[in-house]
């Protein structure tokens, strides 16, 4: 056995440690990143649909009176197709214009209903009130009712099923 000499070279033990840490790090990263992607992947997938949904001829909707319109959207979630029903209030504002609002309360997503007598949208969950323009009159909602993008082609109203914040 040679006497211990302080050498500038790496000892065998140090070399093993460095190589183990290096290879372990590479393995950790090459496995860790795919695993993170695997876990959070479905959460990052955009669920939006860009297909315009026909709502009906504009003249069918009464002037200045919100009318409920419901439509179904089918989404593929993993190995399953889920069909959800959505509701929107169609408000014809003139002979050539229309506004469509979501019936989801902006507070906690309960469905609001138009009250013709009081001329307000009422939310059944926390007694919130919205006016005909969707503005908050009373209650906890943080913002007005969401708006659907619309277009009118040959007198027929279409909506884009992804609602936008008003």
């Amino acid at each position, binding site marked *: 056995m040679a006497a211990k000499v302080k050498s500038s070279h790496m000892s065998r033990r140090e070399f093993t440690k460095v190589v183990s840490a290096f290879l372990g790090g590479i393995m950790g990263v090459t496995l860790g990143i*795919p695993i993170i*992607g695997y876990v959070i992947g479905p959460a990052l997938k955009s669920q939006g649909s860009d297909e315009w949904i026909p709502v009906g001829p504009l003249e069918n909707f009464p002037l200045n009176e919100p009318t409920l319109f419901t439509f179904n959207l089918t989404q593929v979630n993993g*190995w399953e197709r889920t069909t959800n029903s959505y509701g929107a209030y169609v408000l014809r504002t003139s002979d050539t214009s229309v506004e469509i609002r979501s019936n989801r309360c902006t507070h906690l997503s309960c469905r609001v209903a138009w009250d013709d007598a009081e001329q307000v949208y009422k939310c059944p969950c926390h007694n919130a009130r919205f006016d005909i323009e969707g503005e908050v009159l009373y209650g906890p909602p943080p913002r007005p009712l969401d708006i659907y993008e619309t277009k009118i082609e040959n007198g027929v109203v279409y909506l884009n099923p992804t609602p936008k914040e008003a």
Partner: protein
Amino acid sequence: MAEKIFTWLDERLGLETIYGVVLDRKVPKVNWWFTLGSASLFLFIMQGTTGIFLTMYYVPDPTKAYDSVEYIMNGLAFGWLIRGMHHWGATLMVLFVFLHMLRTFYFGAYKYPRELTWLTGVILLLLTLGMGFTGYLLPWNQRAYWATTVGTAIAGSVPFVGDFILKVLRGGPDLSALTLTRFFSAHIWMLPAALVALISTHLYMIVRLGISHIPGEDE
């Protein structure tokens, strides 16, 4: 700072002692054949990890199992990688556990005082094959279905009690949703629990007794 934290932890957990007993123990001069046990352990941990992640999307139901596996393979980021590792890791694990057994046998490492290590190892080999058998059914494709049909039918050929064994394995006379859920349960809970318990015993005895040296010419 890091050293302070380590000292604090070491005083309470005895980390240095564990390290010394488990990793710095005396080992005779051995060769590469002696790494097969560690390789088997590594594969078991890898199978456990990838398997846990697979249960996040897999559904053990005849109407959904195939579609959920299809989703893992084609609809999901890196699903093919996680399932691929589990698939190939399973084959490798059976191979490595078997080679590990051959090494123990040919080097005479099963002799006194390591008989019990050998016996637990035999059960570990059988449990590993059980994991392969139960896992094979889970994708619920044609190959899985018929392999399990044949495999359980072979178990059913045992004299006198064969029919009973077959029904217990299948959860009834035919392959059904019950077969799939019981194979799933065995694959992810029962067999792994038994494997963890026996691997712990196996490793405890290896640390306690040390590993045997390579037999010399005069032995």
